């Protein structure tokens, strides 16, 4: 069985994100990129499937930011092959574009399962998995939390989440694209010595993607939350904020 895992890098919110001078995009200087969290779960689910079925796991990542670290981590965790998908654009592509890029890269390759994170923090235009499945004319299941092989490599049993605490078990004909919400276990730890070893020795494959068409979504303005009518933003130390809240509640007779 062959599994493709599609990943991308997103801004690390721990390091903070600033808006650039155009007011339409995040300032690339302010960003450090890390692997998108649900892509990390997609990789973990693929590695669990590999352990259970001896599947081959290949990871394809868009070339955004420092992609080398996360691809080396994927190799250190047990991926069989990693590929950087070079894009000509400066900024990370929208999901429509990314889906077209991945579709062109995967065209002609034979994968039974294509796993990707169900969402990323910088998604603008829907879920990558659904769009890709459309372009490849394959079934898609999103919000996946468990994948089991039912019958050789022709069918998988998928658990997916529904709102309100519900889940469903679905049989899906393969090949299929799955958007992973969470792997069955938290993404595994990579010992740093193994990671550094891989970083020293691994040569990462690169594939050029087809030229990117004009984006269909245009960002008009990007901004941090603003104070709207009827809202007050409290600032100060936790103690000061708590005191202001108590005063506000008392003033508005919300507490006795």
């Amino acid at each position: 069985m062959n599994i493709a895992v599609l990943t991308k890098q997103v801004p690390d919110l721990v390091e903070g994100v600033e808006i650039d001078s155009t007011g339409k995009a995040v300032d690339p200087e302010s960003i450090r990129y890390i692997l998108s969290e649900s892509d990390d779960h997609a990789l973990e689910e693929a590695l669990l499937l590999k352990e259970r079925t001896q599947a081959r796991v290949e990871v394809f990542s868009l070339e955004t930011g420092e992609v080398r670290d996360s691809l080396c981590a994927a190799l250190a965790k047990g991926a069989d092959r990693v590929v950087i998908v070079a894009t000509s654009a400066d900024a990370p592509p929208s999901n429509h574009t990314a889906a077209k890029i991945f579709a062109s890269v995967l065209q002609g390759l034979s994968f039974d399962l294509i796993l990707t994170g169900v969402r990323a923090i910088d998604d603008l235009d829907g879920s990558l998995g659904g769009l890709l499945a459309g372009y490849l004319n394959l079934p898609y299941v999103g919000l996946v939390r468990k994948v089991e092989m039912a019958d050789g490599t022709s069918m998988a049993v998928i658990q997916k989440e529904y709102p309100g605490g519900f889940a469903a078990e679905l049989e899906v004909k393969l090949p299929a694209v799955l958007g992973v919400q969470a792997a069955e276990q938290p993404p595994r730890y990579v010992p740093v010595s193994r990671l550094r070893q891989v970083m020293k020795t691994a040569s990462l494959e690169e594939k050029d993607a087809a030229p990117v068409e004009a984006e269909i979504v245009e960002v008009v303005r990007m901004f941090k939350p603003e104070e709207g009518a009827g809202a007050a933003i409290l600032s100060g130390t936790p103690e000061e904020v708590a005191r202001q809240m108590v005063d506000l509640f008392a003033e508005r007779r919300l507490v006795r």
Partner: protein
Amino acid sequence: MGLVQVPPIPAAPGPLFPELARAEENFRKCIQCGVCSGSCPMGEAMDYAPRKAVKMLLEGRFNEVVESNTPWLCVSCHTCAVRCPSKLEISDGLFPALRAAVVAEGKALDQDLQKALQNTYLYGNPMGISPKKRADWAKTAGVPVPVISQLKRPVDVLWIVECNPSFEPRGMEISRLLARILNTLGVDFAILGSEERCLGDCEWLAGERGLFEMLIERNIEILNKYKFREIIMTDPHSYRTLRNIYPALGGRYNVQPVVAFLAERLDHLKPLLKKRLSATITYHDSCCLGRKTAHYEEPRMLLAAIPGIKLVEMIQNRESALCCGGGASTIYLDRFIQERVKDRLADRRIMQAVATGAETLAVACPFEPARFEDAVKITGQEGKLVVRDIIELLAESMELN
């Protein structure tokens, strides 16, 4: 009768074999007296207490030991090591090697520990806070806290603040007080600011050797950029590591803990300790200032210099002091440990402190205010005992708070 035949060194799996083989060679000196197990505050909860674990390793039962709970219950209090008649490195040698074997094999780690290690890899601190925010505490210190890269000149004292005192609210407050004390004493000091990273004590003892090596390489590179006469440190764990472990890896510095630095300046400090505190205080010897580096007297000298303070001792003090239970990364394994012990070590220590009749427990390790305050609540001693860092007590007496 011939000599007892020593069995061949068993082959351990994984890349750690050479290191473990060295440890085992050394452990052939073990006379199986059992002082380690008898002294170990966690021995009762371990599947195999240290003596038994050593015996099993020498018998080649490596996997049984590695897969038991034993590697993860050592709090690195070092009591076994100081009492061992064969001078074996149990808490600094055997246990980190066992954990390193687990980590190197890629076995599943406790989730809290894994998060702390990942954060340290990404951000240089286990909390997962941006290194850019490392000196945020200094903004409200009320006195200048220069960052060495901005000073562009040699300084007398480089203060390595470390993670808890940089990021944890109580630790940040203690850092501000220490900055004021240093300022009042006229010390020419600076900090590393956003260039500072974890020194790696917890990571080393947790068995994450690769991460420890990465941190050492980076820290030595940063420290070697600057000129300073000496380093002072707020965190005894990092102090111990910088003093005892870094030199062999190329990082040789003149370093001392803040309490020793201040005790050296006691003549200068004494006249500034004006306010009477009128309190009975008992002092907790942290393992890293105590058994691991033998700074038993300086903290007591500082406390004794504060007017109005009556110092009383707990039943276990100095070399026999009971650990707070947070060393060697076990600060991240609290949940794991709590499920396996009847009373946490911090809770037992609080009951020892209460038994002295003291109303204040003085500490000199940044792990401890939070750990012990938690334990005060858990043991129902709220209102009877408060936990205060020596820096907080000194600053109060100097009227700097």
